C-alpha cells in the first residue's frame, strides 16, 4: 500500500514539477497532525526531530486507520452510525487497544463525576 503510494507520488512529481513534495495516495490534503505526531514519535522512541517524510507516512496510516474503523463501525450494530460499543467490539481481539479504550472511558467517567461534584460544591457555597 505505502509502496504504491510512493510510486504514484514520484510520477506525479515528474509530471507536475511540483518539486519535492511527497504527496502520497491521499492527495494534497493539508497535514492534519504534523505537530502532534512529531511529539508522539519522540515519545514512542524516535529521534527528537523525526523526518518529515516519516511523519507524513504515519499521518496517512493513522487517517486510513480511522477511516477503516469508522467504516467498519458503521456497518455493524446500528447501521450508518458510529457508537462506542461498535468500536469496543471491533477492537476486542487486540488486547492493547481494548485495555486502552476501557481505561480511557473509565477515566472520562471519573473526571465527569469529579467535575460535577466540584461544580455542585461551588454552587452550594
Amino acid at each position, binding site marked *: 500500500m505505502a509502496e504504491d503510494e510512493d510510486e504514484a507520488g514520484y510520477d506525479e512529481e515528474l509530471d507536475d514539477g511540483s518539486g519535492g513534495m511527497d504527496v502520497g495516495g491521499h492527495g494534497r490534503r493539508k497535514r492534519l497532525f504534523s505537530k502532534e505526531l512529531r511529539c508522539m514519535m519522540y*515519545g514512542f522512541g*524516535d529521534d527528537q526531530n523525526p523526518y518529515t*517524510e*516519516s511523519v507524513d*507516512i*504515519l499521518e496517512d496510516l493513522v487517517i486510513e486507520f480511522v477511516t*477503516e474503523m469508522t467504516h467498519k463501525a458503521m456497518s455493524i450494530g446500528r447501521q450508518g*452510525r458510529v457508537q462506542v460499543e461498535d468500536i469496543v467490539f471491533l477492537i476486542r481481539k487486540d488486547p492493547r487497544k481494548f485495555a486502552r479504550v476501557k481505561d480511557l472511558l473509565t477515566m*472520562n467517567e471519573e473526571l465527569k463525576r469529579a467535575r460535577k461534584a466540584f461544580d455542585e460544591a461551588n454552587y452550594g457555597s
Partner: protein
Amino acid sequence: MADPARIKPEVKPERTSSANEEHPKSDGADDGPATSKPADVNKESSSQDPAKQEEKSDMAAGEDEEEGTSDQASKRLKLEPEKKKERRQKVDEDEIQKMQVLVSSFSEEQLNRYEMYRRSAFPKAAIKRLIQSITGSSVSQNVVIAMSGISKVFAGEIVEEALDVCEKWGETPPLQPKHMREAVRRLKSRAQIPNTKYKQILFQ
C-alpha cells in the same frame, strides 16, 4: 495498565482543584490533553516530591479500608466480586508504586521522552471532523475519545515496529520511510492493520 494517576481519584478535592486549573485552558481548546494532563500534573509533582509519594500510598491504604466497610454494609452482594476487586486494586497499587519508583530514577532525557509520551495526543476537533466527514452525521464525544485513544496506540505500534526494523538493519534513528514501510508490511502480515480493500475469494 499502570497509571500513577490512578491513585489520585481517591484524593478528590486535590484532583478536582487541579482539574479546575486545567479547565480555563483546555475548555476553549480541545479536551484532548485534558484527560492526560491532570494525571501528568500529579505525576510530575509526585516525581519531584518523595514525601508526597508516601502520603499517596497511605491514602491508597485508607481507600482499601473504605472498601472493607462498604463490603460489610452490603452483605447481599456476593463476596467474590468484592474480593476480586480488592485484589485487582492491590495489584494496581503495586504497579503504581513501581512506576513511581521507576519514574523517579529517570534521567533528564528520559523524563522528557516520558512526558512527551504521556502528553501527546491527537486533537479531538480534527478527529471529530474526520469521523463526521465519513459518517455524515454527528458522533458522540465518547466515540472521539475512544478513536483518538486507539489511534495513538496504533501509531505507537507502528513506531515500535519501525524501531525494531531499524535496529535489525543496523541503522540508527531518526526513522526513515523505508523502516516505516517495512513495519507496516510486518504488521499487515500479523493482521494488526485493518484492511477491508482486498477480500480473498476462497472458492471460485
